[in-house]
């Protein structure tokens, strides 16, 4: 019953997008568009939440749209409902934030029409139930987000980011198109029900997996297909960055899960899990290392998205490996971990991007080296950003820790896997996951510490003002959800159970809400438990207790004075540690291998008053080894064939004739 309504609402969003073209130039146009988007997202969120929690059966709907012999199929099941929740929660919060943030937009006519269209596109991808509708919606999502990336296209860096994004998006869609083609088979059964019912030969199934990895992975930011992401996500306005990083990457994950776990179905071959697992581990590790080297706050967050996508793929890879060995109980744990991280990442990554947006409005600066001390003028933004930073660093009692803990537990039950390659791969991936978690904490100490703490490094940072109420409300909604999901993880796991059951041959984790004190007990006979609620309570009790006792019994006096700094305080804020210097030890330890980082110091001879120069050289291995050669080859090839553009009409005609002859000959020979 709710499906027509669920479909109607994205259409309403599209209409709002069209209306926004006219309304964009009016002063209250932004308010109207974002207000309606907020309302629609909340209704969609409530409908999806209702579907998932009530555990309703899947509903389908066919509309006479699209291809005449196919029609447009739509379906709402538990998987779609869960991702609808993720998308519309992010969409609602981004719209709420934009009610305030959108006022500062320089070119609203470039943002307003595409924002609702982007939301509509993502919603339609999740509801699509045939390949054609899916791909159309997918392309719609890609193109509308591309338009948003290009909102400030006057900046050449943004234009380049948009170009790269477009190329990668086309490549990804091509891969998905081929994957669906293989799935549909020669009879062209493009609706998902037919695909699900049919079987794919093992060779084709492996090919579909690879194509799904390429197609969905390039949208999600799987290394080495991530190159566009850290350029494109930061280029968009901040609330759109939050949507792209926090939500659109999840739609890509949805695409992967839908194709590999649902459409491809059984039987799964064990090495699939190995491939996904290895890719996930490498992505997590490289993503966080890239992030540590960045001084641009938004780009740092975008690289962190790459890391978190890696963590999600680790969970999915483990689930595939378990499913291939018919270990469905273990697969349920791995899938729950991955889906929980999908939700968590959408919460804290959106929060962090919104916080960056607030900083950007207040200072006009994204470069951390020019910020600092923002906690004094912007205490609330700082608090919200701090909660997000702690959550993404997987610190208890917040939510990021729970999903990493579940992933670790899934890794720890994997020695039962019979394949030797997996036996070696899984602990290695576990080590990569542990390393990336520790490095993420270092990265967010840097991101928060350099941006919000210390003393202002530029006049813009010194004169910043706290952001508006809408933006703060949006950030604190997300921060509150981060805390709630962290201390009540059992409820989230129970909410995920229908999704896991759908993908996992109806095996799921045991219900968690019966456990005493809402403890998380993933596997009964393993007895590893975690209770975020009690950890939080104990910490609050001991922290507040200590504060109360000390202030009461000992001393509560404070004297203000200049900083001590070992006796050498320096008034110049340039003497503080910078983002570059903070990352220096880690750059030296890890970066010298991965990025071939080199530091050069040129000292003038004694007596010379010129300043000493310090230069850091970093190489991006993926770009320089992978993409640059391809780009060079394309350029070389096209310049070689450039002369074809300047031929006479006779030559063109003879070329056409020659091509025709060759093709006909080919057909004759083929037969």
């Amino acid at each position, binding site marked *: 019953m709710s499906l027509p309504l669920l479909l109607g609402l994205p259409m309403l969003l599209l209409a709002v997008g069209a209306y926004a073209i006219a309304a964009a130039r009016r002063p209250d146009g932004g308010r109207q568009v974002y207000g309606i988007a907020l309302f629609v997202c909340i209704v969609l969120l409530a409908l999806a939440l209702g579907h998932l929690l009530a555990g309703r059966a899947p509903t389908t709907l066919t509309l006479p749209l699209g291809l005449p012999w196919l029609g447009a199929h739509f379906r709402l099941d538990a998987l779609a409902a869960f991702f609808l929740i993720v998308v519309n929660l992010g969409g609602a919060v981004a719209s709420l934030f934009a009610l305030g943030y959108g006022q500062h937009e320089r070119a609203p006519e470039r943002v307003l029409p595409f924002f609702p269209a982007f939301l509509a596109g993502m919603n339609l991808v999740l509801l699509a139930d045939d390949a054609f509708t899916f791909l159309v919606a997918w392309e719609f999502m890609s193109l509308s987000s591309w338009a948003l990336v290009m909102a400030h296209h006057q900046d050449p860096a943004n234009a380049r980011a948009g170009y790269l994004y477009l190329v990668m998006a086309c490549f990804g869609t091509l891969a998905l198109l081929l994957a669906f083609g293989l799935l549909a088979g020669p009879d062209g059964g493009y609706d998902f029900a037919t695909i699900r019912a049919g079987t794919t030969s093992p060779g084709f199934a492996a090919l579909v997996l690879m194509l799904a990895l390429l197609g969905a992975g390039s949208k999600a930011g799987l290394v080495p297909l991530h190159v566009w992401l850290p350029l494109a996500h930061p280029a968009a306005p901040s609330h759109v960055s939050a949507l792209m990083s926090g939500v659109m990457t999840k739609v890509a994950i949805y695409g992967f899960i839908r194709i590999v776990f649902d459409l491809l179905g059984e039987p799964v071959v064990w090495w699939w899990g190995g491939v996904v697992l290895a890719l996930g581990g490498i992505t997590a590790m490289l993503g966080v290392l890239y992030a540590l080297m960045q001084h641009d706050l938004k780009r740092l967050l975008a690289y962190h998205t790459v890391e978190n996508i890696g963590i999600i793929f680790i969970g999915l890879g483990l689930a595939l490996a378990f499913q291939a060995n018919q270990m469905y109980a273990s697969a349920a744990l791995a899938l729950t971990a991955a889906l929980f991280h999908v939700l968590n990442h959408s919460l804290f990554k959106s929060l962090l991007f919104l916080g960056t947006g607030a900083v950007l409005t207040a200072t006009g600066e994204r470069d951390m080296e020019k910020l600092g001390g923002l906690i004094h003028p912007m205490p609330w933004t700082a608090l919200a950003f701090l909660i997000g930073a702690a959550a993404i660093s997987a*610190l208890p009692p917040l939510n990021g820790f729970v999903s990493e803990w579940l992933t670790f537990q899934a890794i720890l039950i994997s020695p039962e896997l019979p394949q030797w390659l997996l036996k070696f791969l899984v602990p290695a991936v576990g080590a990569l996951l542990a390393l990336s978690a520790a490095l993420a904490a270092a990265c967010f100490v840097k991101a928060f510490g350099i941006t919000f703490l210390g003393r202002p490094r530029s006049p813009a940072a010194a004169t910043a003002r706290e952001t508006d109420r809408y933006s703060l409300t949006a950030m604190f909604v997300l921060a509150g959800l981060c805390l709630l999901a962290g201390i009540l993880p059992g409820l989230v796991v129970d909410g995920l159970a229908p999704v896991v059951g759908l993908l996992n041959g109806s095996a799921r984790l045991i219900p968690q809400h019966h456990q005493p004190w809402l403890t998380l007990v993933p596997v009964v006979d*393993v007895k590893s438990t975690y209770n975020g609620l009690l950890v939080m309570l104990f910490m609050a009790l001991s922290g507040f207790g200590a504060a109360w006792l000390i202030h009461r019994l000992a001393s509560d006096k404070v004297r203000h004075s200049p900083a001590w700094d070992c006796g050498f305080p320096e008034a110049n804020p340039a003497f503080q540690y910078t983002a570059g210097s903070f990352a220096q030890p880690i750059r030296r330890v890890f970066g010298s291998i991965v990025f071939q980082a080199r530091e050069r110091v040129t000292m003038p001879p004694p007596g010379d008053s010129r300043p000493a120069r310090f230069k850091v050289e970093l190489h991006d291995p993926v770009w320089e080894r992978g993409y640059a050669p391809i780009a060079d080859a394309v350029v070389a090839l096209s310049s070689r064939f450039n002369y074809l553009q300047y031929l006479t009409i006779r030559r063109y005609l003879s070329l056409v004739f020659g091509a025709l002859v060759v093709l006909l000959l080919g057909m004759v020979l083929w037969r």
Partner: protein
Amino acid sequence: MALIVGYLVQGCQMLLILLLAPLLTGWVRTLKARLLRRRGPSVLQPYRDLFKLLRKEVVLADSASWLFRVAPYLIFAALWVAAALVPTFAGGLLFSWTADLIAIVALLGTARFFLALAGLDVGTSFGGIGSSREMMIASLAEPAMLMMVFTLSLLAGTTELSSVARFMLTADVGLRVSLALALLALVMVAIAENARIPVDNPATHLELTMVHEAMVLEYSGRHLALIELSASLKLLLYLSLLGCIFAPWGMATAGAGPAAYLGGAVIYVAKLAFGGVLLALFETSIAKMRVFRVDQFLGAALMLGLLGALLLFVSRSL
């Protein structure tokens, strides 16, 4: 009734570790002084320092924010909860299932996160150098610790510490290569995490060698007292952890009665004292290494931990 006793015993453990932590620090300091042929301060000196600091006023830097004032309480809370979750004199206490070993490692991470932020808060170069190095050390120490957790969990089948300790007492543990590797990794991590020689020097204020001391340079008064107490708690936590995993003998079981608890406590204190002796001996016999050797030291710990886990993935009998 049993529930109330359970709460009481849990509360006793929390108080016990809080009271013992400064004593352990004092014990190690005295031993080190004696080994260097100095007389050294009394074993009780850390208590006197704490009380003195608690009564003093706080001198707050002008550029300090609210985070600087909140951080000591947060760090203390995280470390106290983490330390209280490690079984000391008795296993299987009322709240022992609240957090497993992975969560304890992560709680240490929470404390470190806020300590590093506090180091950056005032905006001095010393605070920054300390924070930056601390996070570099942690970025290797924490995974090494987690690899050790993997090894234990693969053997014991759980990451919950009381169950691990109970498993280590059973006969089917035996001598294993993987356990030896895990022990070595844990000891190396413990040395690094507690800012002991050869990774860091807890007794120096010499700028270029310090990590932990540089971070807390701006703290004074009650804030400093909490930070010092937290550092003591962390040392106690690691020694308790080593004791409970690799020397779980003499630990009372839950509900064993006051006599067993008392016996367990005596043995626990003896274990701590012995650990302190070993630490003092080790520290006096080795020189501090330079900062960019630490990554090799901890990289070795990480590899040892990974090797231990790998061996168990290959065969449960190694």
